[in-house]
């Protein structure tokens, strides 16, 4: 077995060779989001190009660097030149892009984002000066998109496993002290101080303790954990070693959603590499510390994000929560003291241990230290994965990093199905645990969904309640039955059959569900309804009293209309309409029969996006 020092010197040489490449090097962002945007086809196109021209170049698949809306991202690093990044590359762009570098020896200027070199590159801006990246502080995401996640050398060369070495030279109490001083709080949502949970576990006398990494990212609209594991799996695994060493755990599990096949593959590869390096298994790096990690694939249940439900699921049972105490830190998996930490909490640990607690706590606010990753999605211009210091005002996140809202800002939804919708009056509020809780929402795991004037608040509340109703495990009656009734009332309102008394009913029922449920799912499920009722009551009233959906979303309350002056009579909508609701001869304004229309959106889309159409079809509020 080679020692870690040998491995690291080799890794450093490999990394340096990569930075001073003698052969052209292409980087392709091949995380799940990059692949969804078409990275695989771009990769094929690049290979075809190189084959046809008999050129030699290395191709490196990297994780997500964050600005998903720019995917597929392709970077070109010619010998002696810095790495230059290009956005939204389709296979048809590949020949031009590569011709420019390979044939003309010129920097390609279209689709240009910036360079990632340490020195300047004339005329090319710095990648990290891009407006989406300039406002970020990247600690957890430090390696994402820069290293090849399947190559442990890259991780080692960037100080990988140095935090582990430091820990092994300290006592568990010293490590705990570092984490305590750093102010790190659980990144899964509740924000409980990490060190306090650990101490309870460590002080519980028992021969065996367990550590579980919670990667069951169930919040629909959040993908921070997936991106981190796909882009930098070793950081999370090194974090697990640090946590296990501190709490005295001998076995660890990664509980991960089966919907994340690429992340699972990355973890498997990384765990194999750890064994080879001697940082996993018996007597790690010659110390007394032994630890092993197993992957457990979740089978699809949102409630398994709750600690006791997650434990039940690993034990092979229905994932239903139980009463606490005893807390898992005292009595968890198979009755043994167990710590469950979120992916991001664990991924942060190596950076804290390596750079020191004071360094980490310089970021953030008095009570919320450090940085937090968010998946910034919805009706925002620049969507993607971001990392900002806690305490950053929402306005800066949405407008500076996110580039603003597509139409007019309406609300931002934090905390997923457990959180709430906050309107414009909260734009200057800081994103931290306390501020969000005071507003009736929660921090959650980091989903930030921006809603604009084309999003209906009532429909969004109905959506979340529908989600939690389906995911309720059914143990507590208020949650099982209450969420069903909440969905029923919201359904009625969105269909235009609501009555004014429904608002009171919603509120009373919401409080009953909150108060009468055992676990976080039921206790927080009504938050989307309560916050939207509180901050957007007018929209509920419009649905109930005027039978009108101001955002023109609720299908029973909208009509499709063709604007005669704009219609070019191109017949594209006639061709796509599945019910024959649109008629009219070529070159004359078409006619839309609302009695036949099923509001499928086909005509609206084709009229907006087809080159010869005139953007003449509108969806508007009305019965």
């Amino acid at each position, binding site marked *: 077995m080679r020692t870690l020092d040998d491995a690291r010197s080799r890794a450093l040489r490999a990394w340096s060779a990569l930075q001073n490449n003698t052969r052209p090097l292409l980087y392709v962002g091949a995380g*799940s*989001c990059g*692949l*969804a*945007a*078409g990275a695989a086809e771009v990769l094929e196109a690049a290979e075809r190009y190189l084959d046809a021209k008999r050129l030699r170049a290395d191709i490196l698949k990297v994780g997500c660097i964050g600005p*998903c*809306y720019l*995917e597929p991202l392709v970077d070109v690093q010619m010998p002696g030149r810095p790495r230059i990044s290009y956005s939204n590359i389709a296979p048809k762009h590949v020949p031009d892009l590569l011709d420019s570098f390979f044939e003309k020896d010129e920097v390609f200027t279209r689709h240009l984002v910036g360079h990632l070199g340490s020195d300047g590159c004339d005329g090319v801006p710095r990648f990290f000066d891009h407006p989406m990246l300039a406002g970020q502080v990247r600690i957890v995401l430090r390696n994402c998109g820069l290293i090849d996640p399947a190559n442990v050398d890259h991780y080692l060369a960037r100080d990988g496993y140095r935090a582990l070495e430091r820990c092994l030279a300290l006592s568990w109490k010293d490590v705990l002290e570092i984490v305590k001083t750093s102010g790190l709080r659980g990144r899964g949502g509740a924000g409980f101080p990490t060190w306090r949970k650990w101490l309870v576990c460590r002080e519980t006398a028992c021969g065996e303790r367990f550590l579980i990494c919670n990667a069951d*990212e*169930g*919040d*629909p*609209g*959040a*993908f921070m954990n*997936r991106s981190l594991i796909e882009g930098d799996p070793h950081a999370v695994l090194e974090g697990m070693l640090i946590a296990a060493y501190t709490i005295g755990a001998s076995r660890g599990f990664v509980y991960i959603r*089966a*919907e*994340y*096949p690429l992340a699972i593959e990355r973890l498997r590869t990384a765990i194999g590499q750890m064994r080879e390096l001697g940082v996993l298994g018996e007597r790690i790096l010659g110390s007394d510390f032994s630890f092993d990690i197993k992957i*457990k*694939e979740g*089978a*699809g*249940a949102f409630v398994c994000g709750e600690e006791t439900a997650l434990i039940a*699921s*690993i*034990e*092979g049972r*229905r*994932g*239903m929560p139980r009463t606490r105490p005893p807390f898992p830190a005292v009595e968890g998996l198979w009755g043994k003291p167990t710590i469950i930490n979120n992916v991001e909490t664990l991924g942060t640990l190596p950076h804290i241990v390596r750079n020191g607690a004071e360094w980490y706590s310089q970021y953030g606010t008095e009570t919320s230290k450090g940085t937090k990753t968010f*998946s*910034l*999605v*919805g*009706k925002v211009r620049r*969507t*993607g*994965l971001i990392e900002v210091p806690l305490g950053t005002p929402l306005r800066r996140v949405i407008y500076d990093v996110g580039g603003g809202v597509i139409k007019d800002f309406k609300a931002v*939804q934090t905390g*997923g199905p457990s959180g709430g919708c906050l309107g414009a009056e909260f734009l200057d509020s800081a994103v931290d645990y306390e501020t969000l809780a005071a507003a009736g929402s929660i921090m959650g795991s980091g*989903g930030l*969904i921006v*809603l604009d004037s084309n*999003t209906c608040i009532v429909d*969004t509340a109905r*959506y*979340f309640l529908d*989600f939690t109703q389906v*995911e309720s*495990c059914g143990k507590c009656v208020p949650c099982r039955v209450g969420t069903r009734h909440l969905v029923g009332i919201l359904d009625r309102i969105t269909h235009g059959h609501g009555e004014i008394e429904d608002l009171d009913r919603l509120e009373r029922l919401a409080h009953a569900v909150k108060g009468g449920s055992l676990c976080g799912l039921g206790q927080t499920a009504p938050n989307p309804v309560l916050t939207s009722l509180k901050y957007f009551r007018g929209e509920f009233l419009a649905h109930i009293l005027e039978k009108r959906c101001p955002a023109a979303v609720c299908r029973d309350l909208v009509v499709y209309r063709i604007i005669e002056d704009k219609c070019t009579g191109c017949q594209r909508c006639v061709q*796509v309409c*599945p019910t024959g609701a649109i008629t009219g001869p070529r070159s004359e304004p078409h006619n839309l029969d609302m009695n036949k229309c099923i509001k*499928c*959106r*086909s005509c609206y*889309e084709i009229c907006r*996006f087809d080159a010869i159409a005139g953007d003449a079809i509108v969806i508007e509020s009305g019965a």
Partner: protein
Amino acid sequence: MSSQPLSIVMDERKGEPADLIPILQRVQAAHGYLAQESIGAISRHLKISENEIYGVATFYAQFRFTKPGEHRIRVCLGTACHVNGGEQILDVFMRRLDVRPGEATADGKYQLDRVACLGCCALAPVLAVDERIYGQSSVLQVQALLGEAERP
């Protein structure tokens, strides 16, 4: 689809209660679904009653009990996909394939599923056909996809 005998799938596991979910996952991966006979075999192997196994299996969204269609279409209805028109994407599939979510088409060719989140929220609305994920999809793209698939 592999018709790997059930015994091979299960021999790799020792037979502790904690193996139940991994075994169910392996059997489903090999057969495409959990047939009644499979549940019976697992019950004998783990010495857990069939009732209890069904209790666990039906709790989780991953498990299915009927033979799925050959190609699996998953329409994402996570929050970002919902606010960007994911429901209408699902509607087109339902209308064109004449199935409801969770069902297979009459010819057994397609399986339509709605999923809570595929984790590609920045590219919403998202759908997946087998393992290929499509970002920024639209009603029209779905119609084109189905048109291509239907062509002989």
